């Protein structure tokens, strides 16, 4: 219990401290120490919780409720005022509506539903807390060096890095609160706080684009927030409970609509179609923000909620309507976002689309529920959080060191930034390559889907094929070998190298140790939720591990190339090679440097073609879902 409260309140305290601390060495120390403490606390919590049943805590009483209400109202007012000032009337109206709902609820309905246990912790919360604690802290540490470089590269952006770190740490606290909250009112409070954090961080650059995208994110998330508060009101009126843990055992009629609304909120937060636009816009934020909020943690809040609700879909609804439609939205998102990722040249946008796609896959699994798919969903959450944050940070590092984050400009990255490239390769391999990371869970997804709903495997089959394409062409670009590249690794700040190294190591470790992760984290949770477990076939685990070992052995010569005598000749250029490598004698008599560009298939997978399709189809699905439930 103390650890849980510490994990929520300590980051907040650190945040306020950072607001006061000047930049420089003191801030480095404060950030490093508090990040380390948060990570440590998450690990301690793991040790306390693993192997036990879910634990529920009362944690506070009337006073805390009032405090939370006050904080919520205050934050809401601030956001409303900011929106008005920036003439974002829609955002202001949404915020105001949300605020009014909160106040009305507090005045009229608060007494109707009392929750005994406000906080709880089980294996899923621990998994999330570890992601937030360990990866979140690493990213905060990374941001130290990154933000200094960021302000050097963007002299026009006012240095508000105190505020930046304040928000980042406040966010870590809120995120922890979100995963430990059993009381939906608390959960909602933390939910809204993450929305506000995201809003402030996206708008950090303060230019027109950043401001517009910040408000876009705010609007979409506030729509989700409105659905969330509507769900709370309905739950209070119909089921007289706002406890997350009591939903699966509630009566269908009372909770179905609220659960659908909660799932709707989850879809907005995890940027599913038709709400995906905000996550793409959010890529204007500094890269650590993208890594922390928009790939590894905040957007995971959405899927976390849907995973929490998936037993409700199964038990209360029989997996017929809400779960199925949520899964369909996830499936459509997975397919279309994967396709659109192919057409993107900006590495961050590729990552954004891939994030949306993977969240879609998780939603697909969680929507259908059941032991196997829940296993797959949580595995996806874990692998995705680590590998994707690694990729975001690597892209950020390349952007600062080499001046561009276009994939086309990453030709031969292994040559001039070998260590960053290695981190990126680990991340990419973890994202799609058999036998690593995401593929383990994708495999489980396919196996689970065939049993649950074979038709949905079609989405996964097509989506996976396309996924392959955008990762392989990126990987290929990095691995191009050019003659005599100049190593510019020294331009990378130490904090960034360390973070990339640690995250790469973690990606590799989780891949190798996935049977243990499954055994100690996932299986107990699934057993407790569904009273039937899911164990991977031992033979298949063995095959996967053998494959990993083979890849490892085969890659040794890449790391230690050896000095054996080989006969090298330049690439074939129609016989027109010049003595200088990678140049040829052109038809007009001039010397031409070889440049190779990838395919982006704009005519097939372009955003302008697919995005509207995704918005319309998913909107229809959501409307049908809500219509059926009402």
């Amino acid at each position, binding site marked *: 219990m103390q650890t849980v409260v510490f994990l929520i309140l300590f980051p907040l305290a650190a945040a306020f401290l950072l607001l006061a601390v000047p930049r420089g060495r003191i801030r480095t120390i404060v950030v490093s120490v508090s990040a380390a403490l948060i990570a440590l606390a998450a690990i301690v919590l793991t040790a306390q919780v693993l192997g036990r049943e879910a634990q529920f805590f009362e944690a506070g009483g009337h006073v805390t409720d009032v405090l939370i209400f006050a904080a919520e109202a205050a934050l809401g007012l601030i956001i409303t005022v900011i929106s008005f000032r920036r003439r974002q009337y829609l955002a202001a109206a949404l915020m105001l509506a949300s605020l009014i709902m909160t106040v009305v609820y507090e005045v009229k309905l608060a007494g109707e539903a009392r929750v005994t246990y406000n906080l709880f912790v089980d294996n899923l919360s621990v998994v999330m807390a570890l992601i937030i604690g360990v990866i979140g802290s690493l990213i905060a540490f990374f941001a130290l060096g990154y933000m200094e470089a960021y302000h050097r590269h963007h002299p026009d952006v006012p240095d508000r890095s105190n505020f930046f770190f304040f928000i980042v740490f406040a966010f870590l606290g809120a995120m922890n609160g979100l995963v430990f909250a059993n009381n939906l009112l608390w959960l909602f409070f933390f939910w809204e706080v993450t929305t506000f954090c995201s809003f402030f961080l996206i708008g950090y650059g303060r230019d027109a684009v950043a401001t517009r995208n910040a408000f876009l994110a705010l609007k979409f998330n506030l729509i989700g927030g409105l659905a969330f508060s509507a769900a709370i009101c309905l739950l209070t009126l119909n089921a007289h409970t706002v406890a997350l843990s009591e939903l699966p055992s509630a009566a269908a009629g009372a909770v179905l609509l609220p659960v659908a609304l909660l799932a709707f909120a989850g879809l907005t937060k995890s940027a599913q179609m038709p709400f995906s636009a905000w996550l793409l816009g959010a890529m204007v934020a500094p890269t650590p923000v993208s890594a922390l909020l928009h790939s590894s943690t905040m957007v995971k809040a959405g899927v976390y909620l849907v995973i929490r609700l998936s037993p409700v879909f199964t038990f209360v609804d029989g997996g017929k309507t809400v779960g199925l439609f949520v899964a369909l939205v996830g499936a459509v998102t997975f397919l279309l976002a994967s396709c659109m990722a192919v057409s993107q040249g900006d590495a961050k946008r590729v990552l954004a689309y891939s994030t949306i796609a993977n969240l879609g896959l998780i939603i697909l699994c969680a929507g259908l529920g059941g032991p196997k798919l829940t296993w797959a969903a949580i595995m996806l959450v874990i692998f995705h959080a680590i590998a994707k944050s690694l990729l975001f940070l690597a892209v950020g590092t390349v952007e600062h060191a080499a001046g561009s984050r276009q994939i086309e400009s990453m030709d031969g990255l292994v040559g001039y930034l070998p260590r960053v490239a290695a981190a990126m390769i680990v991340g990419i391999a973890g994202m799609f390559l058999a036998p690593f990371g995401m593929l383990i869970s994708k495999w489980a997804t396919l196996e689970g889907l065939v049993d649950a709903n074979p038709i949905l495997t079609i989405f996964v089959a097509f989506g996976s094929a396309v996924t392959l394409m955008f990762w392989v062409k990126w990987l290929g670009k990095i691995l191009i070998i050019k003659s005599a590249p100049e190593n510019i690794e020294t331009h990378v700040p130490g904090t960034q190298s360390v973070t990339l190294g640690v995250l790469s190591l973690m990606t590799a470790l989780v891949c190798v140790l996935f049977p243990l992760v499954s055994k100690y984290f996932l299986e107990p949770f699934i057993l407790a939720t569904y009273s039937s477990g899911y164990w991977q076939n031992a033979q298949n685990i063995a095959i996967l591990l053998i494959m990993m070992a083979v890849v490892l052995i085969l890659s040794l010569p890449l790391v230690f190339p050896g000095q054996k005598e080989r*006969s090298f*000749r*330049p690439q*074939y250029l*129609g*016989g*027109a*090679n010049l003595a200088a490598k990678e140049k040829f004698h052109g038809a007009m008599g001039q010397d031409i440097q070889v440049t190779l560009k990838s395919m982006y298939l704009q005519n097939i997978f372009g955003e302008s073609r697919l995005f509207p399709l995704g918005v319309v189809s998913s909107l229809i699905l959501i409307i049908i879902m809500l219509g059926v439930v009402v």
Partner: protein
Amino acid sequence: MSFLPKSPWLVHYDASSCNGCDIEVLACLTPIYDVERFGVLNIGNPKHADIFVVTGSVNEQNKTVVKNIYDQMAEPKVVVAVGACASSGGIFRECYNVSGGVDTVIPVDVYVPGCAARPEAIIDGVVQGLGVLEAKYQEKGKAAS
């Protein structure tokens, strides 16, 4: 024993031929002569090829190209100069832009006479080239040991 004579792969380069010899080279692939009976393939990539078949005289423009293609072939390799022009420069020998036969740029192993060279002669030249190929392979083995 090597397997080189059993699977000779050709790369054919037209230096500045009048296309007479080129047509005859291609005629070797047709059903009448069908050189694939002997495992001969026209492979189109120097890095895969064993035998470099050059037609036409070499001129100042493509000297480097001939040299580059030759350099990019894997050892052991053989050069067959097909036709009078490739062998000596032929009737273009005295042209201002012609440097002469293929042997002015790269070492030639087999010369095939004719204007244009007949398919039988070309096949015969390639078969002679196989002997050179085998000899070069044995030589390399000796040098290595």
